[in-house]
């Protein structure tokens, strides 16, 4: 049993689940495995998937950014307002990205310089950025974007020779970069170190504060980029775009086995989590399952995803421990005394 839990990791389980959902969908539902449907399904998760990448890095480092969906809304509103004012899109995009990075730096600054917990800070900036979005655009909706731009985000236009829409292709590139950074570089290892033991990481010479600010900046930048994708995909810039999306992003990342306490997780797991929620939603929609039930399924999946590994390890621990623990005994001691089974 212990060997089983050693080799079966949660992100593997999520990937198997993902494949199972795909096969079940292909076998039971007409049109699910069609390339056009898969393009649409992938395109629908584009923003969540993009934001989930820096979120994974943040959660691995023991932080969280709840302001991402508000930044998406602010970026969308800003793009709409500037477009209304006659700016060209080539100018709007860098301005939006700059605002996103600045918002992220503000988050990082408050977290590192003032020493506030990121959960508290980003609840504050969640309100602030959403508020700024409504200041920028009010309750207007800007929808007269030219087709030439909107097409880039639509699922109907794909990378030639594949069924991958452009936003998803971008996501794949970003995901590969992020995976390499997280798992193959010293920087990535330092994120795990910060998440596992911040003080130890600091004394080991890792520039904790600088890294945290950088992570929040990237998170804001990507969120504002996702805002532009969102705006073009729906052809509508509104201040309330993407409201509540932050919880879906976090749910996806946590579903992928990234530990909220920091220090544990893989990018592959997070991506599998995003795709699982996306594909499952698409499959349920095709089967006329109501949106409400989809929400319930997401919630149950999330709870199961954190509960199952603990139940498995608890069961295996009980089996491998010959006699009952006496009350008051320290678990650490038992771990030392237990003969190694491997």
């Amino acid at each position, binding site marked *: 049993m212990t060997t089983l839990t050693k080799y079966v990791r949660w992100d593997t389980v999520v990937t198997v689940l993902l494949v199972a959902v795909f096969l079940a969908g292909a076998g039971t539902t007409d049109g699910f495995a069609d390339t056009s449907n898969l393009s649409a399904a992938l395109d629908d998760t584009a923003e969540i998937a993009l934001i989930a990448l820096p979120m994974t890095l943040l959660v691995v480092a023991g932080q969280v950014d*709840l302001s991402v969906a508000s930044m998406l809304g602010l970026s969308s509103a800003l793009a709409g307002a500037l477009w209304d004012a006659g700016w060209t899109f080539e100018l709007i995009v860098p301005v939006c990205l700059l605002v996103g990075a600045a918002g992220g730096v503000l988050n990082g600054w*408050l977290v590192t310089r*003032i*020493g*506030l*917990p990121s*959960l*508290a*800070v980003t*609840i*504050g*900036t*969640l*309100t*602030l*950025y*959403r*508020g*700024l979005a*409504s*200041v920028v655009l*009010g*309750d207007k909706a800007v929808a007269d974007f030219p087709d030439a731009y909107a097409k880039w985000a639509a699922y109907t236009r794909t990378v030639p020779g594949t069924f991958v829409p452009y936003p998803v292709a971008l996501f794949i590139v970003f995901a590969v970069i992020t995976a390499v950074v997280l798992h193959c570089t010293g920087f990535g290892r330092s994120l795990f170190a910060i998440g596992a033991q911040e003080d130890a990481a600091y004394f080991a010479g890792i520039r904790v504060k600088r890294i945290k600010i950088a992570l929040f900046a990237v998170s804001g930048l990507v969120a504002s980029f996702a805002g532009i994708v969102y705006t073009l995909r729906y052809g509508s810039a509104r201040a309330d775009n993407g409201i*509540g999306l932050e*919880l879906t992003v*976090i*749910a996806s990342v*946590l579903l992928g086995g990234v*530990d*909220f*306490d920091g220090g544990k997780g893989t990018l592959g797991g997070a991506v599998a989590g995003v795709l699982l929620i996306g594909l499952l939603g698409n499959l349920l929609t095709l089967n006329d399952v*109501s*949106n*409400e*039930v*989809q*929400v*319930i*399924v*997401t*919630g*149950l*999946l*999330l*709870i199961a*995803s*954190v*509960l199952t590994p*603990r*139940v498995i390890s608890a069961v295996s621990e009980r089996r491998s421990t010959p006699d009952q623990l006496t009350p008051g005994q*320290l678990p650490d001691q038992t771990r030392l005394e237990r003969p190694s089974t491997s």
Partner: protein
Amino acid sequence: MTTTLDKPLPAPDSARSLLDAVFRARELSIGGALVLLILCTWLTNHGFLDDQGIKDLLLNSSILVLLAVGQSVVVITRNIDLSVGSVTGLTAFACGHFVSGTDHSAVTVVLLGLGLGVVCGLVSGALVSFGRVPALVVTLGMLYVVQGVDQAWAHGEQINAVNVPDGVLSLGTGSVLGIPYLPLISAAVLAGTAYYLRSYRSGRELYAIGSSPEAARLAGIPVRRRILGAYAFSGAVAGFAGALWLARFGTVVADAANGWELTVVSAVVVGGVAITGGTGAVWGAALGALLLTTIGSALVVLKVDSFWQQAITGVLLLAAITTDRIVQVRTTSALRKRSRR
């Protein structure tokens, strides 16, 4: 135990009263901000503090105050309950569904709400304490599940005030000596919880758990049972708030109180209850809730452009937690300097 010390320890009384003062100051600063805000608004518009104005302020804040009290009990144990908003919405709808077209009394409705809330709280609490799963993940999952159940059940329908019995509605509209029931109920729950946390052994143990779960466990505190209790309480309060929501508004849609979880957590954080557990007082959280509501009302009275209101709320929120943190750091270093001497 008789140990002789080289140096006499500082008199415990003076140290404790100083610490007390520091802690009191943390909540007092929020109270001060609240008073200042009310004063400034009143100077610009005297209508803000007439009978109706005060009544509105109290009514608008009472449900948030209630939820903030429940949430802070959970946050003190270094956990979080993100499902409170959806539990409030579900119980409000369930209570409305149950009493529609009947002549059930307010007591029945409140009991129903409490029961439903406790069940939700116990589920989250059991998963957190016995499943040893991170609270944020569990309660985020619960948020989705409860919200989905609520919407699937309501299915676009809504509860209308016409169908709600007068006995229930009077709970939301009635008053004693000119003070509406709702704020009185919130104040009673607040006082009871504050007294419990301050004076009961099991209440103090919640702080111990939040400061150091491991130390609390080794000290023999039944950590899991206490955390389960905190969640049951938070759930009960959310259910109670749902029943009061029905009584206050009469009309309930499926997504009532959706998204409130973050407002409640904001109130708790602004009120000086550290998200990292172990410190804070429920009446600070209640003040935080009152401050957030007052900011909203004041911005309306001051005729601030409605588009600006949320942004200003965000800035004030950040300012509040930043100031609180700076004061905390200053006082800690001051205390350290003092004890070094």
